[in-house]
């Protein structure tokens, strides 16, 4: 599964509009609140069958992709 494409799908669903994201996109730009972020984490974990842990401090989509790749590799 292409991680960026899946993230785009999840983030768009959460935002309620189609988003175009790249690894350089920052979470500040996306303006999700704290509850959105919890929902996003849960959806990612379900989609990739991984556990990401709590309280991640990530600035960009690229950093999130790296976290997902690491979790998938450690499954």
């Amino acid at each position: 599964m292409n991680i960026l494409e899946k993230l785009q799908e999840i983030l768009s669903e959460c935002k309620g509009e189609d988003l175009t994201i790249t690894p350089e996109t920052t979470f500040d730009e996306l303006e999700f609140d704290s509850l959105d972020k919890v929902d996003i984490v849960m959806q990612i974990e379900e989609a990739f069958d991984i556990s990401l842990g709590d309280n991640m401090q990530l600035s960009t989509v690229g950093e999130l992709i790296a976290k997902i790749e690491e979790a998938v590799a450690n499954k």
Partner: protein
Amino acid sequence: MLMSPHVEEVAQMVAEEKVPVVTTGAGNPSRFVKLWKEAGVKILPVVASTALAKMVERAGVDAVIAEGGESGGHVGDLTTMALVPQVVDAVSIPVVAAGGIGDGRGLVAAFALGACGVQMGTRFLVADECTVSAEYKKKVLAAKDISTMVTGKRLGHPVRAIKNTYMNAYAKLEADSNIPDEQLEQFGVGSLRKAAKDGNAEEGCFLAGQIAGMVKKAQPAKVMEGVRWDV
């Protein structure tokens, strides 16, 4: 209060003192659950969404408090009516309802929504035993149904409090895109202390829920606990 700068020390103290029950708010307490469970603490986080409820259930908490946006203080978007049954459906642990509950009618409604109990905050602000300032209690007792407002959404931390000079000024700053987030954040520093401790009517942030309009009597807490019979 998970947004407090002293949260780590407070969490440690909860474990050291073996506090029997702890509730948490304004965030995800999962990182403290192991520490607290080892100390025998019962943990009931406040949650404002089903995703957060599931996340803390997974972490091992004992129950959740599903608090709708009618409540005072930090609030989510969902109302108690919408949130409680969805959280009840999402988790297997007990669910306590909070937000907009002030008497037996709210208690019965909470049971109907699937909750096993209620949490009340605003009602108990005017309890004799509550040590907030006299001005705070006066504001709650004088409040009407529409006396509260929410600010802070721009910073991702919306808060409900009684309308006053401070809240109106904050709302104006928040709506002004020329005001940077840091300035907005700084404007709020100390406002709760000014309300709760100093009783500063104009500059304090008097957190309270929408049910404040129904709170008309200062009483001992023990009498208020009999609220379940006020149906």
